[in-house]
C-alpha cells in the first residue's frame, strides 16, 4: 500500500525510543464527496510492532486517528543493531510491514 513507513528507532539509555510515521489516508467515513455520496471509511485498524520476535506494542485504531498516522513509544529489551518491524492492517484487509534498525 503506497509509500513505506518511516521508522526511527534509537537507544535512549536502556530504552529504545521509536517514532513511526505511516502513510495512510485514514478516511473516517463521515465525509461526502461533491455529488453528496458518503466516502467510505478506509483506515488502519491494527498496528503491531515487534523486536527480536517479541511484540513490543499492539494497537487498535479507529478512523479518528489522524491521516498519515504518527506514533511514538518506548520499550526495553532492544539493543543497537536489532531490527524493529511495524505492521499495520486496515479495514479493507490491506496491510504493510516495514522494518528499521535500532541506532
Amino acid at each position, binding site marked *: 500500500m503506497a509509500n513505506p513507513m518511516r521508522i526511527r528507532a534509537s537507544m535512549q539509555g536502556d*530504552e529504545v525510543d521509536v517514532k513511526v510515521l505511516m502513510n495512510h489516508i*485514514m478516511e*473516517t467515513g*463521515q*465525509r*461526502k464527496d461533491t455529488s453528496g455520496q458518503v466516502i467510505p471509511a478506509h483506515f488502519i*485498524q*491494527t498496528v503491531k510492532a515487534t523486536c527480536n520476535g*517479541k*511484540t*513490543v*506494542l*499492539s*494497537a*487498535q*485504531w*479507529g*478512523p*479518528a*486517528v*489522524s*491521516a498519515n*498516522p*504518527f*506514533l*511514538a*513509544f*518506548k*520499550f*526495553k*529489551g532492544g539493543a543497537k543493531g536489532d531490527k524493529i518491524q511495524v505492521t499495520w*492492517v486496515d*479495514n479493507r*484487509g490491506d496491510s504493510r510491514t516495514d522494518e528499521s534498525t535500532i541506532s
Partner: protein
Amino acid sequence: MNQTRRQALKAGGNLALMSALFATGLTRSVLARAAEQAAAGWNPAAFATTSVDGTIKALNGTNATQSTEITLTAPSIAENGAVVPITVTSNLPKTQSIAILVEKNPNTLAAMFDLPEGTAPTVNTRVKMGQSSNVYALVKADDKFYVASKEVKVTLGGCGG
C-alpha cells in the same frame, strides 16, 4: 465433442466469475467481516460507541476511577482539529493498556494501545477532533481501570463534515 467443450467453457466461466466475486469480497457477509476483524484483534463494538460511558463499558472498565497518576498532554487550543497531538503517560504500576477517547466525536474511541511488559507506559499519537471536547485517557493497570481527562478546544473541526 462440441457439447463437452461448451460445458467445459461454461464451467470455466462460472469458476472465473465466482473467483472474481470472491476476490472482491461480495460473497462475504457483514457478519463474517466483523468476525474476521475480531479475530485480527480489532474490537468493532468498542469503536462503535458514541459516549464516554458507553466506551468504558464496552472495554469492561465500568467504575474506572479518576487518577492523578495519568498525564494527558494535549494542546488547550488545537488550531487544526484534523491533527491534535495527544500524549498519555501513566505512572500507575503494571500499566497494561491505554485508550484515548474523544467525547464529542461521532464515535468516542479513537485509539487503544496494549503495552506488553518491557514497553514504557507512554504513547504519543495524533487524533482528529470534530469539535471542542474533553479528551479522556482510560488506563488499565493491574486489571483495574483509571481515567483522566482534559478539555481541548478546537478552532477548526477535523471530521471534514
